[in-house]
C-alpha cells in the first residue's frame, strides 16, 4: 500500500508523518496533498477560537465525547504558539483531551504556530486535507486565540465557534469587529460565573443591532456551565452541537456554502501562489546576492522599493 492509500484507510502513523512533513515544508508533502485533494471535501470543519484559558480545549474534549456517542470519527488540530525567541513550543491542549487518546476514531494532533500570525499555523489548511481524506466525519481546529487578530480560521471552517468568558475582559466593548464577525456561534463559557447573563444579553443586543435584512443566520449565544458539573456541561455541549448542525444546514439550504467553498479555494490558491512565486523568487534573490544589493540601494537612497521590485518582476515574470 502506498502512503496515499494508507492515509485513505485511516493509518495514523502515515498521516501524522505527512502532517509533520507539511509543517517542516518538505517538498514531497506537497505531492501527497496533490494526490489526496480529490478525496477531500467530505469532513465538516469546525473552528474554536477565544482567549487562552477560555476553555477551548475543555470544550473540544466535551465535543469529542458527544460526537463519539453518535458514532462519528473526529480529527483535532490543536494550535499553540511557538516561542519567537527559541522557536520551541509547549503544546498543552491535549492535556484536556487525553481520555480520547487511545480511541481509534479520534486523532489529535498538536501544532505550533511557527511564526504565523493568524492564530493557526501555515500547515493547518493542508493538515485538514489529510484528516479529511482519512475519512474523518469532523475536523475540529482549536486556534491560539491570543489577541483579536486571529481570524484566519474563518477561511477553513464551515462553522466558527467563538468562546467568551464572563469577567475575562470579554465585554462587548473589548471585542473587536473582526472576531465578532467571524462567529457563527457564540459560547459564553464558565457560565457559572458572575456576569454570564449580562454578557449574553450584551452580545445578543449587539447581534440584533448588527443584523441586516439579508442576513438569515442569526448567530446564537450558548451558555455552558462549569465543567465540574458534568450533566449541565454535557447539556451545554449538546446545545452547542445542535447549533453547529443547524448552521451547517443553513449553509446548505441558503447556498452560502458554495460561496464559502469558493473563498476557501481562493485562500488556498493565494497561499500556494505565494509559496511558488514569491518565496521562490525571494530565495533566488537571497542566494545570488541581489537582495543585498537591493537593500544597499535603498539605504543609499539610490533606488526605492517599488522600482526595485519592478525590476524583479520584469526579470522573473515575463508575461506580466
Amino acid at each position, binding site marked *: 500500500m502506498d502512503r496515499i492509500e494508507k492515509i485513505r484507510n485511516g493509518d*495514523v*502513523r502515515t498521516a*501524522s*508523518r505527512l*502532517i*509533520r512533513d507539511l*509543517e*517542516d*515544508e*518538505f*517538498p514531497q508533502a506537497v505531492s501527497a496533498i496533490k494526490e489526496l485533494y480529490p478525496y477531500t471535501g467530505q469532513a465538516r470543519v469546525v473552528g474554536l477560537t477565544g482567549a487562552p484559558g477560555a476553555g477551548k480545549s475543555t470544550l473540544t474534549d466535551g465535543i469529542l465525547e458527544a460526537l463519539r456517542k453518535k458514532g462519528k470519527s473526529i480529527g483535532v488540530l490543536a494550535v499553540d504558539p*511557538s*516561542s519567537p525567541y*527559541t*522557536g*520551541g*513550543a*509547549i*503544546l*498543552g491542549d*491535549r*492535556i484536556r483531551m*487525553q481520555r480520547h*487518546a*487511545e480511541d481509534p476514531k479520534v*486523532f*489529535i*494532533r*498538536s501544532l*505550533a504556530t*511557527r511564526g504565523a500570525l493568524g492564530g493557526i499555523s501555515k500547515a493547518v489548511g493542508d493538515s485538514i486535507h489529510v484528516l479529511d481524506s482519512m475519512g474523518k466525519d469532523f475536523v475540529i481546529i482549536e486556534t491560539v486565540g491570543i489577541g483579536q487578530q486571529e481570524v484566519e480560521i474563518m477561511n477553513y471552517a464551515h462553522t466558527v465557534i467563538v468562546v467568551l468568558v464572563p469577567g475575562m475582559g470579554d465585554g462587548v466593548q473589548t471585542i473587536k469587529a473582526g472576531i465578532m464577525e467571524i462567529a457563527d456561534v457564540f459560547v459564553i463559557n464558565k457560565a457559572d460565573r458572575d456576569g454570564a447573563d449580562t454578557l449574553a444579553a450584551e452580545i445578543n443586543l449587539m447581534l440584533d443591532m448588527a443584523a441586516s435584512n439579508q442576513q438569515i443566520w442569526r448567530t446564537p449565544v450558548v451558555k455552558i456551565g462549569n465543567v465540574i458539573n458534568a450533566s449541565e456541561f454535557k447539556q451545554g455541549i449538546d446545545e452547542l452541537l445542535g447549533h453547529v448542525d443547524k448552521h451547517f444546514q443553513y449553509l446548505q439550504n441558503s447556498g452560502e456554502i458554495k460561496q464559502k467553498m469558493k473563498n476557501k479555494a481562493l485562500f488556498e490558491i493565494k497561499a500556494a501562489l505565494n509559496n511558488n512565486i514569491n518565496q521562490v523568487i525571494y530565495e533566488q534573490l537571497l542566494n545570488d546576492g541581489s537582495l543585498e544589493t537591493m537593500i544597499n540601494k535603498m539605504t543609499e537612497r539610490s533606488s526605492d522599493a517599488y522600482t526595485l521590485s519592478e525590476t524583479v518582476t520584469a526579470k522573473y515574470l515575463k508575461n506580466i
Partner: protein
Amino acid sequence: MAERKIRVLVAKPGLDGHDRGAKVIAQAFRDAGFEVIYTGLRQTPERIVATAEQEDVDCVALSMLSGSHLTLMPKVTKLLKEKSMDDILVVGGGVIPNEDIPLLKEAGVSEIFTPGTPTSLCAEYIKNNIHLK
C-alpha cells in the same frame, strides 16, 4: 531543503500527583527549541504510545517520581517495539535509584537523568541521540 523540528513528548506515567518536574523539563526543552507535547499527569503506557504515534515525536521523555519506574518505563518501550515505533528515543528522569538504571537501559530506555542533572544537558543528549525521520 527544509529542516526537521525536533518534537518531544513529555509524559508523566504513574499515579502520583506532582508534575512540577515534568513542567520544568517541558519548559527547558521549549527553550532548547523543541516542540514539546505535554500531556499532564497519570498517563498510562498505552496512552503515551498512542500519543507518540499521533504526534510523530522523535523522543518520549518520561518523568517519574512514584517508584513504579521499573514496571512503567519498560512497558512503554515494549509497546513502542510492538508497534515498530522503537526508532523513538526514550529517556527517563526523576528519583530513580542508581541500581535500577542498568535494568532500565537493558529494557530500552536510552538514558536516565537523575535529579540535579542540568536540563540543558538533557536537551543536548536528545539532540545528539534522536534518529530524525
